[in-house]
């Protein structure tokens, strides 16, 4: 049976080193399969987070040869196996152990975003009416599996560690899903500009490239939100129209 070498980051709390493991591989295997085989046969204490093995839970996010990807969705046949496959934890979040990172920051920041606030019900029985095409636009954002690969690849978080000033692509997608919802009445534009730091995004589109769900994060979520910020803060004509409309 053929073998492949995996160079896996081993360590705790950001300190550690890469260790090489040679393991047998077979047709159809994904990176997570190889990690499980290494865990079973050579390194029983290797920490790896996983759940569904179907690309839907977003648990097995890691960096494979420097690219943020889901280990369960990366086939070995898509990688060059004549050299060691490098596996490391996501760089934008604190390392807990080996391939596992602490992504709890995302959930803490998410709680601070203004929640869904629907308008008054359309019908007397307390229900609403929405057109399918209006809700289709935000439906794309609901595909997010919270793997946080977009947060990992975002250079604002990854290289500049501006976690205190910028919420990152995932939480901008979350905000867009609320802000563009046809029933939502809340205004989050001031928060987007100030606390959420949307101005830090310089449209590298790296987040879109790594999204395993194919969400067009930059074009459909971040730029439309940037334009809403422009409407309220940088466009005097829009401001004038708003005053006249009142």
């Amino acid at each position, binding site marked *: 049976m053929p073998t492949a070498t995996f160079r896996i980051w081993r360590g705790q709390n950001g300190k550690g080193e890469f260790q090489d493991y040679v393991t047998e591989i077979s047709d159809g295997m994904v990176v997570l399969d190889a990690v499980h085989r290494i865990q079973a046969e050579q390194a029983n204490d290797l920490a790896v987070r996983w759940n569904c093995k179907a690309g839907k839970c977003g648990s097995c996010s890691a960096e494979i040869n420097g690219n943020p990807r889901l280990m369960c969705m990366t086939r070995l046949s898509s990688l060059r196996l004549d050299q060691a496959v490098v596996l490391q934890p996501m760089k934008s979040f604190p390392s807990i152990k080996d391939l596992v990172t602490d992504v709890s920051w995302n959930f803490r920041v998410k709680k*601070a975003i203004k929640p869904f606030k629907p308008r008054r019900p359309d019908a007397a029985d307390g229900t609403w009416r929405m*057109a399918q095409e209006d809700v289709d636009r935000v439906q794309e954002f609901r595909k997010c599996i919270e793997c946080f690969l977009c947060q990992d690849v975002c250079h604002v978080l990854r290289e500049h*560690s501006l976690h205190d000033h910028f919420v990152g692509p995932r939480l901008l997608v979350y905000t867009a899903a609320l802000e*563009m919802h046809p029933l939502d009445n809340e205004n989050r534009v001031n928060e987007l500009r100030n606390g*959420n730091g949307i*101005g830090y995004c310089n449209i590298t589109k790296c987040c879109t490239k790594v999204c395993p769900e194919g969400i067009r994060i930059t*074009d459909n979520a971040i730029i439309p939100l940037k334009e809403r910020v422009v409407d309220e803060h940088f466009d005097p004509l829009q401001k004038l129209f708003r005053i006249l409309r009142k």
Partner: protein
Amino acid sequence: MSSIDIPLQSGRFGSTKRRDRWWTQPIFTFLGLSVFIVYATWAAFQGQYYRFGPYLSPFYSPEIFGNPLHSWLGAWPAWWPSWAPISAALLILWAPGGFRLTCYYYRGAYYKAFWADPPACTVGEPRKSYRGERSFPLILQNIHRYFLYLALIFLVILGLDVWRALWFTAPDSGHVQFGIGVGTLVLAINVVLLACYTFGCHSLRHLIGGRVDEISKSSVRRNSYNCVTCLNARHMLFAWTSLFSVMFADLYVRLCAMGIWHDWRII
């Protein structure tokens, strides 16, 4: 906002575990934009060879001052400072240039290619500090929609240039007659590509319908939004093709005017 518990370390400039040729895209972007900037600057300062028969170079349209027979305001005024270059292109190129400079696609592209901010995804950056588009000068990128309004006006003007490029003056009789030359096609293709780029603009997509949460309430708005969205999905493609088509259109007219190329009449 909630802080992260452990300070993370940023990588050295160019450091990455990526194995692919990540540098090719920023290098091609750098070369492509550099070629355009150098050529456009050179062409704008020439002030001549921008008109050939019914063709007018897009770099010089609208011709505000210039040939008294064709320009909007006649010959160059006497008060024009002697130290200032005489070129109609320099009066107008700031508008389409500003549109492209503040374009969302180009911003992402030139931040990577010229600023290495970042050089490519998951590649280490040369600078430790980062301010993004929150403060001067990059906060000025937010005026993109005003350049969009100007770009839409330019599209109409360039469309009229294509119409004028259909009417040739016979050299012997002086009569004006309908015709199509290779130059007409060059100018027409250029306008089509520019239109595809301009109508796929992210700001236009927002203004035409994206700012509204219930887009289905107006069929005109919904259809317009869907059309812009369709073009927007190919914004990068049209950004590059229109960039080179406008450069080629100027080159074509210039070389014909200089007598180096011959303009073939199709009809």
